[in-house]
């Protein structure tokens, strides 16, 4: 899903979703260089998600008693 920064107000960027719904996004979600009109892609990183899951499972197995 692509989102577009419409404007900044205070601590928030107001972003437009593809159906023109507007959402407040805290500035901390965005790189400091982000500016009005910038388009971002929201997508699931499948490989990264899997890698994290495996890493955490491994550590769980190490620390769990039962």
């Amino acid at each position, binding site marked *: 899903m692509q989102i*577009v920064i*419409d*404007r900044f*107000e*205070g*601590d*928030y960027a*107001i972003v*437009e979703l*593809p159906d*023109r*719904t*507007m959402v*407040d996004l805290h500035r901390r979600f965005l790189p400091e260089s982000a500016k*009005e*009109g*910038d*388009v971002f892609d929201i997508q699931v990183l499948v490989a990264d998600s899997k890698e994290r899951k495996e890493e955490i499972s491994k550590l769980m197995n190490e620390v769990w008693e039962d």
Partner: protein
Amino acid sequence: MKKQQRFYYVYLLLIVLAGVVFYVSSPDHSVPVSEISGPKLSVHFLDVGQADCILITAPNGKTMMIDAGNNGDADVILDYLRSLDVDTIDVMVGTHPHEDHIGGMDAVIQAMNVDRIVMPKVSTNTKTFYDVLKAVRDKGLKVNTAKAGMSIPLDPDLQIQILSPKRERYESLNDYSVVIRLTYRQVSFMLMGDLETLGETELLESNDQLQADILKVGHHGSSSSTSARFLKAVAPQYGVISVGAGNRYGHPNPKVLERLEKVCQVLRTDRDGHIIIETDGENIAVRKMKE
């Protein structure tokens, strides 16, 4: 004194007291709406939440709209226009292409007869803006570039001057805001869009006449706008803030509010609802729809 007579005096006193209380508690010392007679200019500041939408009805019956609320505000705006039997917007102005100013513009262009569209020539990447351009194209209309020095002919008795944008390029979209000074005989309105301090400074450095009776406060009362110097130059009797209740952005800014309250009466769409200011060119009457 007879009992009946005593009651009579008590009643009389109560009526006089009620009159005094009514007069003193009336919200401003402008004239009541009934005293505005003959050809009048009405400026409606619509309550569209955290967004701007201003409707102007000229003494000759022509209409002009400045901004059209958020994406979700089309119904509020169109219902309001229909309640006034308005089916034509002679001039549609988009102060700058942020969604809280052009959100309902595509719907207004589609639903109304629109004669002329004026916007600063600047682009943004939202679908909101794309849809406005598409609505303009589908209606077979063209956009005129808003530039300082332009005047908009709507009614021979009105002066509608564009004071900003003064440059062709700015960093941020708010700086492109179309600023309109609207004058009917002795009464002037200064309508700021989302102009910030940069643009206010440009106005102060120009030869433009800035004094106005009514100031549509820039950028929803944000700290970015309404500098002390600028407010002093405008010296309004009324300051109108278009703002949504409980917004997260700190609008209006308490310092700006304090600055305004020292010099003028503040009207706010979040508290007052739609605000209608009417004038015969001399007297000013204010109506608040939430009162």
